[in-house]
């Protein structure tokens, strides 16, 4: 189906099913129960997981396939957001013009930055992209204040023109009249599941983005990108110029980032300069590596894990911990809470750091490898071939 072989079609369908069921998957505990704290099935977080999933999928096309480590992808995310908000201000609060311009602008921007940065490879390339992104951040933060509204962030105001919108058009971002913020709450057996228009919009786009990335992974173009990663010199000696391929990969991943930025603005029509800062660029690198660089599903898992930690773990402050451990004698309780509170609440980044360290040390293939090993334990071991040394190992399926 859709130009995919049977195995990939299955894979895509599983991804679609998982994405569509996110409101259930992220809301496993009933309201009012002690574990309700860990529910993450509210629109903002679900949409963020989908959006940063897109961002990481795009980043993975560059990093996972060509091995070029960009430390400046947040710049494209920011450009996407600013373009989207400007579309909201000038043209229409319908989300489509905003997203289209976001992708185009981020594409142009990444073409320029990629053209310059890709003259070098390895660490020099990383530093160049980092410098470019930091420059963009500084520009957005203060120099281009009329365009970006600096630190305050660009917002939609009631006084904005919105040329395409009629007098009765909705005041907030919408899909042809259907408000992004609308949601339906389904209360069943103590559980509350929230189905939000914005989330499903992001989810559908994420699936399309995933499908495109799947096709790129399987295409001859994808093979060329892998060739760049494995041995660029050999590729040149064969008579192929790697630069157009790397530049194309860079621009594609830049456009993915722009799409993610545009969607961020759709969910919340404000563009702040902070989302262009180098920490944001670093975040997508961590997402990709945590989930598994070079795998299709890994970056999405990484994005989900980090956004969940950031939003849920950071809410477990000392008061909550004291509630949990109230059954302990006071002196022990204080010690336990003191230690745990370093890792939750504001210390959530410490938990992330530890997790990242463990994953990189013990699961170099990221969470995807962890999952594979886990399920591998239940599988019957294939019979050992008679002559192991003289059979080439079958290359692993990239989807796994």
């Amino acid at each position: 189906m859709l130009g995919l072989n049977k195995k990939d079609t299955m894979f895509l369908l599983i991804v679609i099913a998982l994405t569509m069921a996110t409101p259930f998957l992220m809301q496993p505990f009933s309201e009012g129960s002690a574990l309700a704290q860990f529910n993450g099935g509210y629109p903002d977080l679900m949409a963020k997981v989908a959006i940063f999933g897109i961002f990481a999928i795009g980043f993975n096309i560059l990093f996972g396939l060509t091995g070029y480590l960009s430390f400046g992808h947040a710049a494209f995310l920011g450009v996407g957001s600013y373009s989207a908000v400007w579309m909201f201000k000038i043209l229409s609060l319908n989300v489509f013009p905003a997203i289209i311009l976001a992708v185009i602008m981020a594409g142009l921007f990444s073409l320029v930055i990629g053209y310059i940065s890709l003259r070098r490879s390895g660490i020099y390339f990383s530093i160049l992209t980092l410098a470019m992104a930091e420059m963009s951040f500084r520009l957005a933060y203060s120099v281009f204040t009329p365009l970006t509204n600096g630190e305050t962030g660009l917002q939609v105001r009631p006084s904005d023109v919105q040329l395409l919108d009629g007098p009765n058009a909705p005041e907030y971002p919408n899909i042809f009249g259907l408000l992004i913020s609308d949601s339906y709450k389904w209360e069943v057996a103590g559980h509350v599941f929230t189905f939000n228009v914005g989330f499903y919009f992001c989810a559908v786009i994420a699936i399309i983005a995933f499908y495109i990335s799947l096709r790129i992974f399987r295409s001859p173009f994808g093979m060329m990108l892998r060739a760049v990663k494995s041995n660029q010199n050999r590729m040149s000696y064969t008579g192929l110029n790697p630069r157009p391929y790397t530049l194309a990969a860079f621009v594609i991943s830049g456009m993915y980032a722009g799409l993610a930025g545009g969607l961020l603005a759709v969910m919340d029509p404000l563009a702040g300069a902070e989302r262009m800062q180098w920490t944001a660029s670093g975040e997508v690198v961590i997402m990709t590596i945590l989930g598994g660089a070079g795998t299709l599903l890994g970056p999405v898992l990484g994005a989900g894990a980090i956004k969940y930690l950031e939003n849920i773990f950071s809410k477990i402050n000392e008061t909550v911990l004291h509630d949990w451990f109230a059954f302990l004698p006071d002196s022990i309780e204080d010690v336990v809470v003191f230690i745990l509170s370093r890792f939750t609440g504001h210390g959530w980044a410490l938990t992330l750091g530890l997790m990242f360290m463990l994953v990189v040390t013990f699961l170099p293939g990221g969470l995807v490898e962890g999952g594979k090993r886990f399920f591998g334990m239940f599988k019957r071991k294939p019979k050992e071939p008679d002559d192991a040394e003289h059979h080439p190992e079958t290359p692993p399926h990239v989807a796994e």
Partner: protein
Amino acid sequence: MTKSNLTRRGLIKTGAAASAGLAMPTLFTGNVWAAAHSGYRNAPTNGTVTLGFNVPQSGPYADEGADELRAYELAVEHLNGGGDGGMMNTFSSSALTGAGILGNKVQFVTGDTQTKSDAARASAKSMIEKDGAVMITGGSSSGVAIAVQGMCQEAGVIFMAGLTHSNDTTGKDKKANGFRHFFNAYMSAAALAPVLKKLYGTDRTAYHLTADYSWGWTQEESIAAATEAMGWKTAEKVRTPLATTDFSSYIAPVLNSGADVLVLNHYGGNMVNSLTNAVQFGLRDKQVNGKNFEIVVPLYSRLMAKGAGANVKGIFGSTNWHWSLTDAGSKAFVKSFGTKYGFPPSQAAHTVYCQTLLYADACQRAGTHNPCAVAEALEGFKFDGLGNGPTEYRAEDHQCFKDVLVVKGKENPENEFDLLEIVEVTPRAQVEYAPDHPMFAGGELGKCNPGA
């Protein structure tokens, strides 16, 4: 192990059916469904009402944020009938009884704004969507306040601004669901200018260092306009990024600019660092054009004075409230805050405490948490006994109008909290302006949004 018979066709069919089924509920827009329950977003359930306190717990305004959080906890305690009741006893409205709000017990959730617009909106969003907060309050930066106010307007909950001093919060970025108790940059300038004229004369040249965001911009505009009106000249206006911690490179050019007054449009950690740098460069001991070089800090707070130490002695500025005020409301608040935490509250703590009480009182008077009814109860509301004398929430822009304090860094502090002394209480009439004043024009409140 059962062996299922997976076919491609079967998979597509079930997949399509499943996704259609899952997507189905979104076809009904939420408005109809939610409205059937209460008519507004996050109505209290099970006898509790949740308030969201969104304060900076990290970044340059973290000190203010920590103090705000203390005041919020105190306010919640008082609303639920705990403690000594604080300013609830001196408040001119007697709707609050100490039995929560409308009989619902008050509980709260907190978020960290990080003093970043993005992060602040995300934490406010999660408090509204996940924790069911019916009102968001707090913040210690105008950039954040404006961003969160816009978000609350879209989400349909009330926003009670914390420490935000930019003209824009109730000027061109005002929103029907947003309310500000704190004073603003225009009021600071209007109160400060006559005092500066008396002290330093009319023949002065000012050099502005300004935090590069909404508040800094309007503070600079206001104070420059007010001082130029009395004959001062402006040498230069330099913008400094909010995240700056070392201002040496900005202070050095001041020495050769010919200016004899340095206006620091900085707040919090920024002001502590820039003032310290300025003093280290010997600015205060200099003579320029035959006059003593002076430093002015338009927006002052005790926490900043504490951070800057001896450097603040004799430096003038304005403030919203100070714990040494002797009216009954201030005394009651200082007493209950001091009893609980062991030190006097800052102006940030005072303003957020007032905001929480004002919100609770408005709900009580309106008989509901519905943002539209609450907004109506607050608009044009006149009250007293909250430490600032007679105060009014103006209906046109949701800004509180009250007296403004001009303060000075104390020369001989008696203890570590006694850092500012009140020079003048500028009456409300002198700092009042028309809602369509050019510095505030260009925005509209819009319609209140109940979120359902």
